[in-house]
């Protein structure tokens, strides 16, 4: 399987906490170690059968991967309580753990389990989250774990967790001269990958609808690019664009009604919008230069896109109502494939500077630009729905892999794959 090794996430860089992102944490963790120490105790279980997943381990991995937490190793734990009455707070003070997550699992009827958990503050010796429980089937243990991670993350950072989200990506496997392309969907931690569509012809530009139910992508057929939309639950798909020339870069509008896309049917690449229900196509740009890579702003009023109308490719903003275009990026030799954070504050681009392609972050208020990555041939940035992390594609040891960087540039990790090239990550929205 592709991502067996995703668990062995490599931290290339550890961080200190910025005040902006986790006020609560800063107050509590004084001292040199800026990572928030937390112990996730193995969940208690009295049943005889083997459990499908180690929930506490998944929660620990989630929190560690966020770059905000330092997990207390199990081997150091002096006790392993599964309910608050059994917790000796001094044990955890000795281990310098500020928080403890405990939980227990109870087998119900019909392969169902009840998973209870609580989050305890070691300093105040009180629960931050009192005992609460969720019922899941054996197949959904990982969902339960990510749910708990989201809860803990939100309680301690004030930001909604994105551990329950998913990612789309494209793999190219086998003979490089005739690879098999697969569009896959997996949990945000790379587990449980499933093939959405596979083809001997290239697949690119996967994009989520805002409710996470539908996706759009470009797939070649008979050596020509076409745009498809597909419902994930049923696999039902529609071919929505097969004009002569380019059919590319589909991007769902925030209200889910339209797709922005690129067509060159009228000679050169232009941005269009397609109303999915009425099939009405509207041309949004009109310029002899390349206009491509549209992406909606979170409020749906604007579309950012790449154009080389100024000589080199840079990012421009299109006002959807007036179709007025203004230039957005000015730093770097070129900027392409922009994505905006959900709060509209930052623009993430692929910037070329000194011959290198890196992920850059531009503050839309101040215009300040920060280069986030130091990897090689970085492309395809995609932002987590809570705006905390950017997943992107890069080249590592001659192979295409996915990597993640926090929007403050401090947390970085790679997602190495077992074989083949991995590219074109697309981070899902929240699932309601």
């Amino acid at each position, binding site marked *: 399987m592709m991502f067996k090794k995703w668990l062995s996430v490599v931290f290339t860089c550890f961080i200190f906490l910025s005040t902006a992102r986790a006020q609560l944490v800063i107050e509590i963790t004084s001292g040199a170690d800026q990572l928030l120490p937390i112990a996730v105790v193995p969940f208690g279980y009295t049943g005889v059968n083997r459990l499908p997943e180690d929930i506490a381990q998944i929660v620990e991995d989630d929190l560690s991967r966020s770059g905000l937490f330092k997990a207390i190793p199990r081997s150091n734990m002096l006790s392993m309580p599964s309910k608050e009455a059994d917790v000796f707070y001094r044990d955890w003070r000795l281990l310098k753990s500020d928080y403890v997550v405990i939980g227990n699992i109870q087998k119900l009827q019909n392969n169902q389990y009840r998973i209870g958990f609580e989050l305890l503050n070691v300093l105040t010796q009180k629960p931050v989250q009192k005992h609460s429980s969720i019922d899941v089937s054996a197949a959904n243990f990982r969902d339960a774990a990510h749910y708990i991670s989201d809860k803990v993350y939100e309680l301690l950072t004030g930001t909604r967790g994105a551990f329950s989200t998913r990612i789309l990506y494209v793999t190219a496997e086998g003979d490089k001269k005739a690879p098999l392309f697969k569009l896959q969907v997996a949990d945000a931690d790379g587990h449980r990958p499933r093939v959405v569509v596979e083809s001997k012809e290239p697949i*690119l530009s996967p994009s989520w609808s805002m409710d996470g139910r539908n996706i759009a992508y470009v797939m070649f057929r*008979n050596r020509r*690019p076409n745009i498809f939309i597909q419902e994930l639950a049923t696999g039902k798909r*529609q071919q*929505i664009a097969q004009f002569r020339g380019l059919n*590319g870069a589909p991007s769902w509008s925030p209200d889910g009604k339209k797709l922005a896309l690129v067509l060159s049917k009228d000679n050169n690449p232009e941005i269009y919008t397609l109303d999915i229900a009425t099939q009405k196509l509207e041309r949004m740009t009109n310029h002899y230069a390349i206009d491509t890579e549209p992406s909606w702003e979170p409020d749906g009023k604007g579309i950012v896109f790449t154009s080389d109308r100024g000589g080199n490719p840079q990012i421009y903003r299109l006002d959807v109502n007036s179709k007025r275009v203004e230039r957005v990026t000015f730093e770097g030799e070129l900027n392409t494939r922009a994505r905006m954070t959900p709060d509209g504050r930052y623009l993430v681009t692929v910037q070329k500077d000194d011959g290198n392609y890196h992920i850059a972050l531009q503050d839309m208020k101040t215009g300040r630009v920060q280069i986030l990555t130091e990897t090689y041939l970085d492309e395809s940035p995609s932002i987590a729905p809570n705006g905390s992390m950017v997943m992107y594609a890069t080249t590592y040891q001659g192979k295409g892999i996915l990597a993640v960087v926090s929007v403050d540039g401090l947390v970085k990790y790679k997602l190495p794959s077992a074989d083949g090239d991995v590219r074109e990550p697309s981070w899902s929205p929240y699932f309601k």
Partner: protein
Amino acid sequence: MSVNKLGKFAVIGLSAAWIAGCSTTATDTDSSTVAEDANSTEQAADTGSSDQAYGAGEDGALTSVIVDDTEAAQESSMDSLAGVETVFYFDFDKSIVRPESREALAKHAEYLVANPDARVVLEGHADERGTREYNMALGERRAKAISRYLTIQGVAASQIETVSFGEEVPVAFGHDSNAWQLNRRVEVRYE
């Protein structure tokens, strides 16, 4: 090569295509499959012929059936192009036809002018640097540069189709300037 001779071949080619078309189902030409995983909630199934296209495109499947057979029929009429280069290279981020490409392109133009029924697809490619959709646009721009070169020499625009593969189909797999040079190209393919 006489026009008459080519005409004959074209007729044979088209009839062959028709016969082949009758015995070939449209789905055979679709090399993609939507995966099925009975255990997953995301049960996927290709809707196949119920695929609905909103775009005003042509019937891709039928086109491709004709493609294979006319290709075979044209083989002998294409003798005049034997040994003529079919891959043309470009500079980084550029779409200017290089001087060394002109001689071979002139031969392609000559053939296309002499054979108005011949159809050519110009497939543009980019190297791996830069983003994928921008490279799709860049590949198309290169294919269009070749197309312009051919039309200037009298080839009818209706004989030419430009398609871009962006950086998706490299021929060299290194991550260095040699590999990149080989991948920045337009391939001339007769249909």
